Structures are given as structure tokens and as C-alpha cells.
């Protein structure tokens, strides 16, 4: 079972491009629909916990499902399976990157790619705003976060803590 889990999560890790959120539907397809290891409700529970915890969402989801299937060894196995493909691919790229970095053509390619990265991040912001249905107040918090980071250079750690603690205090006072 552990070996099967490792292979499944390794496959998930190897074939999902574009970051963690792209992995979630693949995890669902493999673990819920194909393998029937957990059902849809359990998958939703896993997602909720994964998104509420620090760290990469896809890795968190794998860890949760691993626990569910085979306890601690299961969690370890699925986490390793998810991470290993990225690790291997990046290690290979990193080894060659600095050799190729000096060719002028690589420089030109990256001059084109950098604005694309801005476009991708901004479009993630756009899609999140549309999906989240934040009210006026919470969008103001987002705006304040941007301004604080860009102009004051305060560490994001403090802002995350302030957001969490502030919301608890706010809700406590109002309830």
C-alpha cells in the first residue's frame, strides 16, 4: 500500500505544472475517482485543513490524505512522493542554469519572460478577487497589505499575524 501511495503521489507531483492549485484537481482525480482511497467529503475536509495551514497547499493535502490512509508512515510517504519530482527536476535545471545563463540569447529570453511573470501574478490576483467575493472592508485590508509591504517594507509575517489576531478580536467584540 505504501509503495502504491508513493507511486500515485509521485505521478501527481511529476505531471502538474503551474504550482499547487493546479495539483488539487489531479489529486482528486487520482485519489478519489480512480483509487477510491477516500470519498469526496473527506477530500473536501483535507482541502479545508490544507488551505488553513501554512505551507504549500498541495503538499498539505497529500500529507492529510497520507495520514488518513496509513497514519504517520503514510503521511511521510505521500509527502515525499509529491515533493520528489519537483526536487529532481529543479536540481537538474539549477545545475545547468548558471552555465547557460551567460549566453546572450538566454538573457533575451528572460527579458521577455519577466513581464510574463508579472502578468501571471496579476491575473491570479484578478481571479482571486472575482472568486473570493470580498466585501469593501476586506478589500481595504488587502490594499493596506500591499501598501504596507511596498512602501514600508514591513515583514509579511507580521501582517499575517495581525490579520489573524485582528479578525479574532473584531469578531469577539462584535459577538
Amino acid at each position: 500500500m505504501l509503495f502504491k501511495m508513493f507511486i500515485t503521489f509521485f505521478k501527481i507531483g511529476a505531471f502538474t505544472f503551474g504550482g499547487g492549485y493546479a495539483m488539487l484537481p489531479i489529486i482528486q482525480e487520482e485519489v478519489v475517482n480512480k483509487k477510491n482511497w477516500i470519498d469526496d467529503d473527506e477530500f473536501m475536509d483535507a482541502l479545508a485543513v490544507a488551505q488553513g495551514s501554512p505551507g504549500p497547499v498541495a503538499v498539505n493535502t497529500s500529507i492529510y490524505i497520507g495520514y488518513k490512509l496509513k497514519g504517520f508512515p503514510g503521511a511521510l510517504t505521500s509527502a515525499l512522493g509529491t515533493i520528489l519530482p519537483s526536487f529532481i527536476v529543479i536540481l537538474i535545471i539549477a545545475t545547468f542554469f548558471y552555465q547557460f545563463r551567460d549566453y546572450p540569447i538566454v538573457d533575451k529570453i528572460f527579458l521577455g519572460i519577466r513581464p510574463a511573470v508579472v502578468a501571471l501574478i496579476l491575473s491570479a490576483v484578478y481571479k482571486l478577487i472575482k472568486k473570493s467575493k470580498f466585501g469593501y472592508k476586506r478589500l481595504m485590508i488587502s490594499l493596506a497589505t500591499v501598501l504596507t509591504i511596498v512602501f514600508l517594507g514591513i515583514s509579511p509575517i507580521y501582517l499575517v499575524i495581525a490579520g489573524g489576531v485582528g479578525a479574532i478580536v473584531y469578531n469577539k467584540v462584535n459577538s
Partner: protein
Amino acid sequence: MATKGIKVGDAVENLVKLFLSFLKIGAFSFGGGYAMLPLIEEEIIKVQGWLTETEFIDIVAISEMTPGPIAINSATFLGYKVAGVLGSVLATLAVVLPSFTVMSILYHFITKFKNTPYLEWAFTGIRPVVLGLIAAASVTVAKSAFIDIKSVIIGAGLFYLVSFKNFNAILAIVLAGFLGALLY
């Protein structure tokens, strides 16, 4: 001055710093992916000075094109840059360790947490901050990416395609690379 003892000491110190930095990044980044970028930037560029802004963006671009979560990709890459293979192993482990710890605790206590409103309350405040973090990442990247009118046009065009035409992210980067080779 530079005896072997000091060099070994420096290397160990670097590895410890690397591990602690990524432990911090893993522990305080909620929402995954782009939301982690400001924290990585703060730790790796501003505090430690291990990377320049443009190197950082290039690594983000490479992460987009390779499989797996961006946080893992950048930890592996940066770890390699700072301290070779050992560095990449350490950084990757460090960024996952907080996830593993928190998920282990949550898995065992999930029923207790489900009945208290505090966690849910905290997240009503954290989620807008995460959105702000992602937006802030775009400002940082834009500062080094937009160097002339051509780059602004590439950025704006791809933003339109990805946001409104569901253009694939990997294709967007490949296309941008072609345009870069062609235009510069």
C-alpha cells in the same frame, strides 16, 4: 585569515541560516504559491542578500514551467545556489517541515478545532492579507521586469490572454520567451 577552520565554520553557518530562513518561509506562508513570494523576497533578498531581484524573478518563471508547488521549486533552486546539493536538500526539507508538523497536529485534533470559531475567524482576516501579499509580489516583480515599452506591452497582452481568454500559464511563458528572443 582565511584558514580552513573558518571556511568550514562559514559553510555550516550558511547552511543553518538557509535552513532557518526556509523554516520561517514554510511556517508563515498561508495560501501557498504566489502568496509566499513576498516572504521569500524578504528573507532571501533583503535579509540574507543571497539573490538579486532579477535572479529571483527568473527562478519564479522556471518554477512556473516545472512540475510541483512553487514553494518547493524555489526552495530547491535557492538551496542549490547558496550551498549546492546539500543546500537544496536542507532548504526543501525546511520549507516542508512546518507543513508536516502543523498537518500532523491538525489531523489528530481536527474535531476539536471544528467546534471553535477562532480558527475560522482568524482566516477571515488572513485571507485578505494573503490577497494583498500576492498583489505586492506583482509590484516587486514589475519593478525589475518592466524595463521599457516592449516589456510593458508583453506583460499587458499576456495579462489579457491569461485573465480573460483562459490562456495557459506555461504557454504564456514560452510565448514570452520567444518574444524576448525576437524583440531584444
